[in-house]
């Protein structure tokens, strides 16, 4: 059964939210949804771009109180 996971990349300059997502995807199953929390606006472009390039599924981006939630589904 697919899981929903939070990848809390708030305040992460290094390694940063995208690197946290890459690491988290390794320990996830196909179909799992990962909600990446980021305070870096750059993640709004960086994460969907990487997700499309690798072949995972980009689900959505929302913003709440200065924290962006970028949701990704592991597809392979």
């Amino acid at each position, binding site marked *: 059964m697919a899981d929903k996971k939070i990848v809390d990349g708030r*305040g992460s300059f*290094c390694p940063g939210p995208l690197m946290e997502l890459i690491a988290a995807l390794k320990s996830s199953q196909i179909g799992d949804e990962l909600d990446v929390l980021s305070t870096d606006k750059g993640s709004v472009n960086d994460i969907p771009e990487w997700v499309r390039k690798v*072949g995972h599924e980009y689900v959505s981006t929302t913003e709440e109180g200065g924290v962006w939630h970028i949701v990704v589904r592991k597809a392979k």
Partner: protein
Amino acid sequence: MKILIVGGGMGGTILANSLARRLTAELKAGKARITMLSASDKHMYQPGLLYLAIGRMTPDELYRDQASLLEPGIEFHVDPVEEFMLDNNRVKTKSGKLVDYDIMVIATGSRMYPEGIPGLAENAELFYTEESALKMFKRLQSFEGGKVVITVGVPHKCPMAPLEITFMLHDYFKDRGLSDKVQLHYTYPINRVHSLENVAKWAAPEMNRLGITYDTFFNLKEVDGANKVLKSEEGTEIKYDLLIAIPAHKGMEVVEKNGLGQGGWIPTNRTKLNMEGRSNVFVCGDTTNIPISKAGSTAHFEADTLAENIAAVIKMGSPVRDYDGKVFCFIEAGKDRATYAMFNYQNPPDPKAPTKAMHWFKMAYNKLYWISARGLL
């Protein structure tokens, strides 16, 4: 008050020493007790492995006897923990001893995990252990030319290591007169050459200037050792003659086996540094799942915070400050120039152009580390 520190690396050692000095009176009066359980009687200066791999340090320079680094009053045992019984405030060690605690700090560190990528361990040169760093140096010595590819897995210890090894290799081959015969090719998992944007803005032009080529968005999926080809998650391929890898890391096996955290990373409160759901268990250094650099300086600054807070809890009943996410990383930009990055949860780094002075400061720190480990610097 029984304080148990699990792990004798940088974080555990700084914490134990700082606590012992803050609690001198309490230790003397028998009101506090500090016990350290470690897997080794030796303490390794891990950043030195980078220098060992290119022949600029020798193995003996990396080690001190752990007992010689610790303040009197700290009970030190080479007897690693095998079982954590958090509900009973107790651990069981390899020798079978049961050790009780009132406060425990887990600082067991992390390890490279090249086995996670098919073909990587067998075909890459690595530098995260003494054995692998020595093997890499011998391989470099016999290398006479070709394409050297650097790959990076995540998460990994020391976020600056990929850039540092690349620039140091450039100077190493230049000194051997092989610049025309060696093509250095750097790869990185995201869309720039380093996760820190300001570092990437400095490093990419530097690579261009030195003739180092690079691919971004390259996440290694598999190494085809027979054909010397790297295959990425993104579907690209790169041929290599010599493969240098910064492999992905995992936390220690004992953490996973005890179910304390997936991948060996323990869920940790980012400011209080307590293990999520436990008020008397703290986590320090690489072992946390906090989304900041797995680096010695992170362990150092977390240990400073924990020492202040644990001592304050014993003396006054409550902690006194939060960890602010502080990290400081030197960045070697070759054999004789360096810069640094300093940042916390709120403030991004702003690295300056590399200088010789910063390189010599780093060289000095390689010696000063032993004072740092004693909790004095």
